[in-house]
């Protein structure tokens, strides 16, 4: 995958990951989710910089933890997309059957290769902007900025918990982008992608919080969260179409990016194995947990706070033990 294709794909995928994560998985920050996205950016910069500064042979050691996390996260995205399909229209269809078209799309995307994904991401970013513009313009009278108050939402602890999760997704996807590229991808480029994705995701999270207030009188179920997100109770019915297109388009990019990254990381991990076999292993790593229902919502919610700590600790350990210091290609 070329550097520019990885850059576009990373923006499309990371924006979706942060939005879906902060609204559905890590709602700890309540109505301050947008602050958690900004905190996530700040927390993720040191480990991403560290990963970029690792010498390529040393960085190879990061491929295994990145592959495991990437495959599981892709499976999570597949499960979430299938759950949203079920919620919207196909509640009478078994989840595995809802996953099959998504997995077919991933298969097709991997077949076409990373550059095709990057090209699609460039088109998607423009289309997504147009869709969101339509949605925002029509929803303008319905936004209630008062629901962003009190500004710190669930408080420092909640923002920190959600921020750490966001930082974990940032490090994972940025690390995946670094692993996907044929050439070295520079820290500055990754930083730009992180900044753009975080800004867009924080804005979307804030807009979503202006459409539905934080629920305080009882614990909110996943069904309620996804229901209020996708049907967006206070918006006109016709806006559901652009919103659902934006949601599934974003999720599809996330799934495809993470699956392609999983294949690329497998290849890095097993350089002597034929590329076709590596792709098969990478896809199996995504498909198997998805179809076996490993990434259940409760499991991922428990594990996702540790993603940031695990990846940062690994990068730091490699830096200390094996040494870094090689400047990134683009940043030098």
């Amino acid at each position, binding site marked *: 995958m070329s550097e520019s294709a990885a850059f576009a794909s990373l923006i499309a995928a990371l924006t979706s990951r942060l939005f879906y994560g902060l609204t559905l998985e890590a709602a700890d920050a*309540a*109505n301050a989710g947008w602050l958690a996205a900004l905190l996530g950016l700040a927390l993720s910069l040191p480990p991403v910089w560290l990963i970029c500064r690792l010498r390529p042979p040393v960085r190879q050691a990061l491929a295994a933890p990145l592959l495991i996390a990437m495959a599981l996260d892709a499976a999570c995205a597949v499960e979430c997309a299938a759950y949203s*399909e079920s*919620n*919207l*229209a*196909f*509640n*009478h*269809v078994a989840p595995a*059957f*809802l996953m*099959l*078209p998504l997995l*077919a799309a991933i*298969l*097709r995307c991997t077949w076409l290769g990373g550059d095709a994904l990057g090209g699609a991401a460039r088109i998607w970013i423009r289309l997504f902007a147009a869709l969101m513009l339509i949605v925002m313009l029509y929803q303008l009278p319905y936004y*209630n*900025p*008062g*629901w962003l*108050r*009190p*500004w*710190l*939402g*669930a*408080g420092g602890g909640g923002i920190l918990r959600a921020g750490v999760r966001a930082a974990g997704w940032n490090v994972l996807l940025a690390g995946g982008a670094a692993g996907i590229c044929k050439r070295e991808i520079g820290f500055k480029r990754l930083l730009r992608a992180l900044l753009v994705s975080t800004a867009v995701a924080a804005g979307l999270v804030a807009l979503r919080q202006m459409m*539905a*207030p*934080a*629920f*305080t*009188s*009882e614990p909110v179920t996943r*069904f*309620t969260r996804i*229901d209020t997100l996708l*049907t967006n*109770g*206070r*918006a*006109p*019915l016709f806006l559901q179409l652009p919103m659902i297109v934006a949601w599934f388009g974003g999720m599809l990019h996330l799934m495809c990016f993470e699956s392609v990254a999983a294949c690329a990381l497998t290849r890095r991990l097993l350089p002597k194995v034929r590329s076709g076999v590596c792709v098969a292993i990478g896809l199996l790593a995504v498909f198997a947990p998805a179809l076996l229902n490993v990434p259940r919502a409760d499991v991922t919610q428990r594990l996702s706070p540790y993603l940031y700590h695990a990846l940062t600790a690994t990068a730091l350990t490699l830096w200390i033990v094996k040494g870094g210091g090689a400047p990134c290609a683009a940043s030098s």
Partner: protein
Amino acid sequence: MRRIIITLLLLIIPALSGCAVTGEVENQAYALVMGVDQTSAGGIDLTIRIPRIGHGDSGGEGAVGKGEPYLVLTASGDDYAQAMEHLQWAAARELNLSHLNLLIVSESLASGQDFPALIREIADTRHLYANAGFVVCEGRAGDFIEGQETLLGSHLSSDISAMFRHYAAHGFIPGATFADLYYATLSCYSDPTGIWGFPDSGEQAAAAIIDTDEAALNVQTKTASSRQYLGTALFRDGVCVGRLDGAETLCLNLLTRQVAAFGFEADGRAWALSSTLPPRVRARRDGEKMIIDVTVSLTGDDPGDPTAAEAAVERSITRVVERCKALRVEPFGFAAKAAAHFATLDDWLSYDWRARFPEADVRVKVHIAAAE
């Protein structure tokens, strides 16, 4: 070979996603209006109106000829879930609530202590369109729905939307939807409202409108529909605790949003007023007490001195605020402004806005500018 595989994959996708005969329009029972009542045994009655497929002028396949364009179905159960199950059976097709226009609840049910739990159950109904208008009606919701007619042969869904848009623009009803009720019940901001509906009994509409001395809306009406919507049902903690009449609803609407046009009588003169801007609301904290400054800017058609009219509108609005304070209900949207003075949701919840609102100092200022 590659093209064949791709084509096969694309062809398989629709089949895998579960698109089947059950998704066809003919197999759906689209409920446009749903009513919820409590039975005498404590159970739930659900009543829906669904359009009859094939009714009308085409006369094609599936047409059922002339007659009532809508079916009214009712089902009962020990609770909401069971009543919904029975309704699924009664509908004889896949009951689809994604195009719901109106959710009507009887006053007795909305005033019960179990209503908040029912709100959650209704909200959790699969594919329910939560932006449907929310009405609290006098008497049974089922009877209310059965008596609802459409005007000039228009569709029920567009008829309801047009009517509510018109009423809301003129301040006769609050812009209440079920989503607003649900969100406000579960969150920590202002209290929700419902649209007050009642069967037309000739005098009641006028009586509701001219409840206050200042109101100049004392029109005697004869309407085409036997179902009327005028006024506001007030909720506290998800339970209906009172209602505002037409004139009071107008004041409520002046504090919450723009009102396109309304008449007002002050000092023997009739004013045609409109609000060109949303009201400006500022909240200040003075120790434990909250001070709310509200400025309502209106435009009037009379170039004369507006002082008397301004004072009259201010008095009317203040009276409605006091009435709501007495009921310990805050439907004005002040909470979102007051919450800015707290750092976190926990701090805000500890302050307990709903309990403290009656002590808040609400200062209303009305400006009337002459139209250009």
